[in-house]
Each structure stands twice: as structure tokens, then as C-alpha cells.
């Protein structure tokens, strides 16, 4: 699971209000190089929940992202870090934890399992 995906996943258990973001418990993280696409990244900057990305990246061992996205978004060194965090870190094994209910959604072989049990729907 890459952080671009984590940035959209919520806990949809019935009754939970604080559904996003899910806290990451990382057991195994892999890094895989992906082509750098600055136009795409600039476009994404406005759509990404920045704090969730920074916290998610930290949980996966990457601490280079600034706490806030800089005003000069065309700054290439920044875009490279954004690129790395958003698209090149992959959670192979671990969990996504709902901050309100504590429910853990397992991530196995890079695939998060968001299926709810019958009593959670």
C-alpha cells in the first residue's frame, strides 16, 4: 500500500466519527522507484491531506517531509521528497488502525483488507 492510497482510506465502521486518517503500524516497508512526474505531483499537492501524508511517511521510516507544504511548490528538491513519500514507499506488511475504535485493518503482501465484520456494518 502506498501513501497515495492511505490518503483516501477511512474507517467505515458504523458509528465511528473520526474515520481519517488511519494510523499506520509498519512491520515491513519496501521502496520501489517510480518515474518522477512533476506536473502530476503539483496537481496532487492541492488534493492530498498533508498531515496524514507526513505522519504516514514517518510511520514508514521517512522523516524528510516538511510539516507544511512550501508556498513555492515548483521547488524541485521538495517535489522529489513529496514524490518519494507519496509513490515510492510501500507498506508490505502491517496494519492500519482506526484512531477512534482501535480496529486494525491488516495489510498483507501490500494489500490492505478493509472488509468489515457483520457487526461493524
Amino acid at each position, binding site marked *: *500500500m*502506498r501513501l*497515495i*492510497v492511505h*490518503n*483516501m*482510506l*477511512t474507517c*467505515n465502521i458504523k458509528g465511528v466519527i473520526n*474515520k*481519517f486518517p488511519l494510523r499506520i503500524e509498519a512491520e515491513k516497508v519496501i521502496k*520501489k522507484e*517510480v518515474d518522477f*512526474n512533476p*506536473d*502530476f505531483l503539483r496537481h*496532487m499537492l492541492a*488534493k*492530498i*491531506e498533508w498531515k496524514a501524508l507526513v505522519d504516514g511517511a514517518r510511520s514508514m521510516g521517512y522523516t524528510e517531509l516538511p510539516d507544511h507544504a512550501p508556498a513555492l511548490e515548483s521547488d524541485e528538491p521538495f517535489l522529489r521528497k513529496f514524490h518519494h513519500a507519496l*509513490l515510492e514507499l510501500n507498506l508490505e506488511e502491517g496494519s492500519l488502525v482506526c484512531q477512534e475504535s482501535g480496529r486494525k485493518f491488516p495489510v498483507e*503482501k*501490500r*494489500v*490492505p*483488507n*478493509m*472488509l*468489515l465484520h457483520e457487526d461493524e*456494518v
Partner: protein
Amino acid sequence: MKLKQLEGLLGDLQQFSNPKVELEQYPTGPHIASRMLFTAENSYGDITDKVVADFGCGCGTLSAAAALLDAACVIGFDIDPQSLETATLNAEELEVEIDFVQCDVTKLELKGQVVGTVVMNPPFGTRKKGADMEFLSAAMKVASQAVYSLHKTSTREHIKRAALRDFNAKSAEVICELRYDLPKLYKFHKRKEVDIAVDLWRFEPRQN
């Protein structure tokens, strides 16, 4: 990439080894998949450099097509772990990057406007009544740009009305009519092959 080349690559993908009838698991053939995604990109610019979600991805045929047409990011969503394993292998074979999420698409809640385009070959609702509409409703909530979907031609008026009236569609157009060749996959299929008329739809959501 040319259409023929795309179709060829998709034809090499592994499909369901043990399809589950209750999930209406049918492979999306390379002929339909290649035309669907090729049109989405060449006529509408909805794939290349975009974030594309494949709802009910199964073995990942539509996801693979999106990746081969240079989507910036492709995410396949499906409820069945075996299909997702096959989809993962297919992505590796093609050397494309696809993220997969195991979930019930009809109960999914995705935050934000990250997904631009949703592509899907949803269940037609022959096993679980209304499944086609549930998938369409879910897709319209997630896509910020466009939804491409296949539905039986016999449901055309019903789909158009529901999309415009209930699912927040700004537009709902049938791009073309295709013949979906369904091979004899399940024991209860009597004929060797059956040919269903399906519409390829493009829906545009209203800006949220």
C-alpha cells in the same frame, strides 16, 4: 501504445482459476478492455497522468490497461482475495505498478478528491439484485472527473435515469455498444458461449 498492442498484452493475463458465481466473476476480455480504456484516453484524456480506480477489479484487466496507458496511479478494489492475488501476479508480469485494496466497494468510503477516473466492469445484478446500481452509485461518489462502466443494453433507460436523478451525474452517455462474449464458465451455463449486448457508459459527476 497502439490498440492492437494493448489488446495483445491484455490477452496474456491470467484470469479467474475458480470463478465465484455469487460474485458474478467473469473476465473482462482483452477486446472490450482495450477499447474501453483506449477510448477513455484518446477521446477524453481520462487515463494518462491521472489517478484511476478500478472498482471490482477481479484479476485486474482494466487496471492493467490503465497502467499500460500511463495512468499516474492505478488502484484496483475487489472483495475477493484470490482474484487480488492473480491481479498482483498480472501486474508483476506486465511490470506495471498497481495498488490493490480488498474491500466491499459498495460500503467503501474514500476521502477527498484524489481519484480522477473510475473504470469498471461491475456485476450486472443477476446474482445480487441491484449490484450494478450500487457499484455505479459508489463510483460516482469517488470519481472527480469521469466514470466508465459496462451495463447491459437492456438496462439503458433505467441507468440513465438513475445516474442523472440519483447519482449526481452531470452527464450520462453511451459511448458505444459492445458484444460481451461470455464463455461457458459455470456448470449451470447450458450454451458453449453466449453473447450479451452491453453499453459502454461515460458518466461525468457534478463538482462536489
